[in-house]
């Protein structure tokens, strides 16, 4: 385990990330890497469900994605996802969730480069210790 101090980007929920990883930079790097690899595909699935108007499927996909955001310090997007998931339970009309869905997508799109950059920093930190 890499025990050098690592400060997460303040645009992420750094306090939460410290509590999750406790200095385990290798594990953080592994999780950030999984997020960068998987999140675009998962968002694409949600896009397709939205286009098809299948609210229940979209709810289930959002439910799965919800903790994933927190694992990389995007706790605010987890909250977006929570609100969206709850709204999906109340309606079967896709237009009722349009605004919440767009909010989640915009926040995801804005934060993705931050996570990618953080992954680069984590990898650098590991390389410095090798």
């Amino acid at each position, binding site marked *: 385990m890499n025990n050098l101090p690592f400060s997460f980007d303040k645009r992420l929920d750094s306090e939460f990330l410290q*509590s*999750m990883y*406790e200095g*385990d930079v290798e*594990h953080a790097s*592994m*999780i950030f890497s*999984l*997020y960068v690899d*998987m999140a675009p595909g998962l968002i694409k699935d949600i896009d397709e469900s939205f286009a098809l108007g299948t609210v229940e499927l979209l709810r*289930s996909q959002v*439910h*799965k994605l*919800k*903790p*994933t955001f*927190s*694992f990389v310090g995007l706790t605010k997007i987890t909250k977006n996802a929570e609100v969206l998931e709850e709204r999906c339970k109340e309606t079967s009309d896709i237009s009722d969730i349009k605004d919440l869905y767009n909010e989640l997508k915009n926040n995801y799109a804005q934060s993705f480069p931050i996570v990618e950059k953080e992954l680069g920093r984590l990898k650098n930190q590991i390389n410095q210790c090798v």
Partner: protein
Amino acid sequence: MKFKCVIVDDEPMARSFLERYCEKKGNLEMMGSFSDAETAFHFLKSNEIDILFLDVEMPGENGFGLLDKLLYMPKVILTTSKTDYAFDAFQYNVSDYLKKPFSFNRFQESINKVAEANDKVKVETAKEDFFIKTEGKFIRLNYQDILYIESLGDYVKYFTDSKFYLTHSTLKAVEEKMKTKYFMKVHRSYIVNLNKIKDIQDNSIVINGKVIPISKSMKPEVMGRINVV
């Protein structure tokens, strides 16, 4: 003691966290990590474990569906991002409920809880007898003489081979005191001595000729606690 454990979660990041936490905790032996209930069931059919980290909402069969099929009941720690499963968790006698994402500290608390419960069973198993108040006096009963205990409203009946003892109590209170390796609540009205079971068929147990019903939710745990060859 090392606890043998299995993870069932369709979400790779969640599995990765659990695998890492198990590795860090030290007293856990990872037996398998599965992304769906079906594959996990095939493994669990032939491998007995102590702790099951289980997600609920998964594609295909959900976590509770897996528990319904198991022939024995390990300690179950639910790992889910929802808090809507409290009633089911209670029904399935779940040991703890970890809401994702959770920290290593929270994970440790959960494992310690399971370990403490395990120790308590061991200590209580060591005691051989206890007293009950009946007919105005205290009577000593040996745990191994009791066949089963039946609830009758505000009273409970302790049955032995030769007689029964009626005492003012509730099954819930008795259950707390009888938490040993040998006793188990199998129905809202019955606690049985597992060593005295003659046979089990469908949803009932026979002890000394008495047919005792088993609750559907308790069946997997009953099957898990008897020694099936």
